[in-house]
């Protein structure tokens, strides 16, 4: 709760809204005890007194009634009506939504048909039909506004519940012997409650506005009862001669609704876990760069990552995702980068072309050189021209990485036309050729497909075709087969291998699978907690791992054909990169660790092709 309030008030606008609203609500609550004049006492000789008149701070209305007093009582009435309407709509709507979403099937069908019917009305017509039947009056207006808002809650809550009901914890609850009522009340409701609160906080202002509107039209509160809407409606008759009552009441409604909206936005931001971390910020066209320290000197390599440091700045925490990583790749070579989740392998890959989402990502040091030219800190346009033309990417999940609304032929053509001014017909021809290159049958008709019309394996072939579109020198493949079935994976890997041999491509292959590395890569770099802990020729590293982590990780991987057995495990967990221990990050899990392992940086050392970051390596490296 305290966390919620803290989060809420971090949003300054929400804090302003909360303050204004609390003042208004407080005044409305104590109105009966304030020394106000009788709001109904007419005094015709003194009608339309302007504000700041003696005895009438806000002046008087068309019947000479004190505006200040009427404003207080009217506000009290409007707030109350809006609040009650919101409660009714939220309770009934949420009950419908949660029942409908949990049970699904026929119950869902009947409830949702009914809700659809209600939503088929422009909402005020339904409200007016209800008022027409029940007769004008504030209570009837309240009922009408509550009813027309039920569909909003029902739909919202149903959507959330459907998602939750498919979650495995609901199945687990059933297996623990819970009945439907218990699941709805104790498993689902606590999870839905924040959404109900969000929906209420964002609609209560709207409902106050709506009831005021009905009263304004004369369909809500009837004299002598007065809410802000009917006061505005009365004042409107004399708008052109004596506008001040209209203006005062209008501003009051505006202030109430605005403060509720501000607070509502704040509540939503504080309760919605996705918004909480500021995740809904748009990633910039390229990763932010804020390099301290020296920039490494150019090398001759095709692509060189030099002492790269990439961090994520979230709130006050700094996650050192990539820490002093140096890698190079030669034409025709396949370099594997292997590591577990959170090891920084993907961030390293994305940093090359400035594709790390930013905010929160920042490249804080090192260089990435393509043929000697530094890409980090290069102007955006230069980087854009290199992207996809010299260095291209293949990503993990081809369903989410292809644009769902463009035909794959158009997506391929766009990749070409972003770098080469060719005609549409020519681009189309090349797109077909590319699909044939990645062995997609019926390429001529396939280019008219949308991604959702293809299987996972076919989509990933399209992803590869797109990476090949401009005949790049380097392809960075970020776990390209992780989302695929094993029979499909084998084909994609074989395809990639053929392509690189035929075309002399350099590939940086990011994976967590030693089997894949062994089959595909010439060299391999092992990453742990943002650093490279070992690097060398694949055969070398697999046969004689020098770092204890590499050695034990290889031992963990079950391999087909070894039969039933006890598997090796590494106790403990990888460190969180916002809180790295000094020295070797693996030391806390390492059975060879000695005190000096946790003191100061350990260099990546070795002679020849194999290097290791360890004081007591498993093998003597020649």
């Amino acid at each position, binding site marked *: 709760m305290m966390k919620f309030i803290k989060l809420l008030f971090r949003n300054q606008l929400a804090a302003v809204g909360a303050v204004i609203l609390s003042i208004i609500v407080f005044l409305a609550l104590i109105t009966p005890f304030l020394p106000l004049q009788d709001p109904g006492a007419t005094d015709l000789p003194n009608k339309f007194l302007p504000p700041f008149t003696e005895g009438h701070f806000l002046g008087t209305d068309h019947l000479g009634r004190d505006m200040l007093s009427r404003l207080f009582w009217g506000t009290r009435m409007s707030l109350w009506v809006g609040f009650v309407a919101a409660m009714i709509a939220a309770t009934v709507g949420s009950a419908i939504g949660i029942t409908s979403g949990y049970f699904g099937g026929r119950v869902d069908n009947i409830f949702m048909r009914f809700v659809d019917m209600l939503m088929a*009305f422009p909402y005020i017509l339904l409200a007016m039909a209800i008022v*027409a*039947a029940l007769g004008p009056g504030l209570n009837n207006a309240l009922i009408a506004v509550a009813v027309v808002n039920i569909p909003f809650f029902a739909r919202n809550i149903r959507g959330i519940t459907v998602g939750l009901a498919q979650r495995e914890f609901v199945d687990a609850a059933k297996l623990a012997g819970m009945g439907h009522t218990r699941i709805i009340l104790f498993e689902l409701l606590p999870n839905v409650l924040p959404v109900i609160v969000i929906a209420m906080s964002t609609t209560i202002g709207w409902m106050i506005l709506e009831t005021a509107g009905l009263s304004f039209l004369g369909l809500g509160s009837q004299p002598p009862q007065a809410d802000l809407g009917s006061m505005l409606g009365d004042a409107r008759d004399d708008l052109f001669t004596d506008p001040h009552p209209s203006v005062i009441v*209008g501003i009051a409604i505006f202030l109430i609704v605005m403060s509720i909206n*501000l607070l509502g936005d704040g509540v939503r931001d504080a309760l919605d876990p996705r918004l909480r971390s500021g995740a*809904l910020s*748009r990633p910039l066209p390229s990763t932010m760069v804020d390099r301290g320290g020296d920039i490494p000197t150019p090398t001759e390599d095709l692509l060189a990552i030099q002492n790269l440091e990439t961090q994520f700045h979230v709130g006050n925490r700094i996650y050192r995702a990539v820490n002093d990583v140096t890698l190079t790749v030669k034409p025709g070579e396949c370099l594997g980068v292997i590591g577990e989740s959170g090891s920084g392998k993907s961030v390293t890959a994305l940093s090359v*072309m400035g594709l790390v989402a930013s905010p929160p990502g920042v490249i804080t040091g090192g260089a990435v050189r393509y043929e000697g030219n530094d890409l980090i800190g290069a102007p955006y346009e230069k980087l854009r021209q290199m992207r996809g033309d010299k260095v291209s990417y293949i990503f993990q999940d081809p369903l989410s990485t292809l*644009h769902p*609304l463009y035909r794959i032929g158009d997506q391929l053509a766009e990749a070409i036309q972003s770098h080469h001014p060719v005609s549409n017909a020519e681009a189309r021809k090349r797109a077909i050729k590319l699909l044939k290159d990645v062995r997609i049958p019926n390429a001529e008709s396939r280019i008219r497909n949308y991604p959702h019309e293809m299987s996972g394996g076919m989509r990933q072939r399209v992803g590869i075709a797109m990476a090949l579109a401009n005949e790049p020198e380097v392809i960075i493949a970020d776990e390209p087969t992780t989302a695929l079935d094993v029979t499909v994976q084998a084909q994609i890997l074989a395809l990639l291998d053929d392509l690189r041999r035929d075309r002399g491509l350099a590939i940086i292959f990011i994976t967590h699978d030693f089997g894949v590395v062994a089959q595909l890569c010439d060299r391999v770099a092992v990453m742990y907690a943002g650093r490279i802990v070992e690097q060398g020729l694949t055969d070398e590293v697999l046969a004689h791992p020098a770092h204890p982590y590499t050695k034990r990780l290889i031992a963990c991987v079950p391999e087909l054909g070894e039969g039933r057995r006890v598997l090796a495990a590494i106790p403990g967990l990888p460190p969180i990169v916002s809180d790295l221990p000094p020295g070797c990050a693996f030391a806390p899990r390492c059975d060879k660790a000695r005190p000096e392992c946790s003191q100061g940086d350990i260099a990546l050392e070795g002679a020849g092709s194999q290097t290791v970051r360890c004081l007591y390596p498993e093998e003597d490296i020649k």
Partner: protein
Amino acid sequence: MGAYILKRLLSAIPVILGITIIVFLIIELIPGDPATAILGAYATPENVERINRDLGLDKPMVARYFIWLGNMLQGDFGRSFSLNRPVLDEISDRFSATLILAGVSFVLCSIFGILAGVISAARQYGFADKAITFVVLIGISIPSFFLGMMLQLFFAVQHRMLPVSGMKMIYGGGDLPDILWHLILPATALAAVATGVIARLSRSAMLEVLRQDYIRTARAKGVNERRVIYGHALRSAMVSIIPILGIQAGFVISGAVYIEYVFEWPGLGRMLVNAILKRDILLVEGGVVVVASCYVLFNIMVDVIQSLIDPRIKT
């Protein structure tokens, strides 16, 4: 495509039937003898006898519904007792006024709302974003009827730049420029709120889309940023913006009731308010059924447009 439109149109039939049932049931809620309830102050013996005959009020509820529905299908919405003319005549006279007001406002709020939302998202946390967010906040918090009144006061009364109210000049008016001239203030007041809502939702739709993996793919293949935002991202965002437009159309129609009342615009909204105050139930029924049915048809159009943009919708 044709088959899809036909399918959607057919699916509208049960919805419109549902609307008539709901309206019928709501009117049935009126306590007391239906004839006197419907007629209210106009319950003269001749009228009671006439309505009993027209609506079969002596018959059971289900039979009454079908008589009422049958009459409506034949274009007979009954007779407005307060205006002493057939309901349908009154509705058709006023239909175009509402259509002009709501239509123009809807076009305005769609264009400006989406534009503001997209710019706001593209320049997140920049000056334009903050300015737009601020204006939008005011827009969605101000009651449209109050905004209308203030526009009248400032532009029409104090500065005499634009007409205070009405749809055309009483003498010699009624041509297109005249109507547009009268339309400026009410359309602005009506569009303001919806523009704010559309802008907000478009902004978050854009931000959501810009975080997707396929935007990263587009950038990775070297597509320039303008095309990333106004091509790839906007196209996907439209998939969630278009249904919002459908819902906002309902809000524009609803808002038109207030604006017609404030600006004395001779449309259906104003007619409905008067009808309720005079308890002219048949006129209310007719107006609600006609407007709601139009809204249903409009939403079908929205669905069809949606299916043109999103190939994942099975047509």
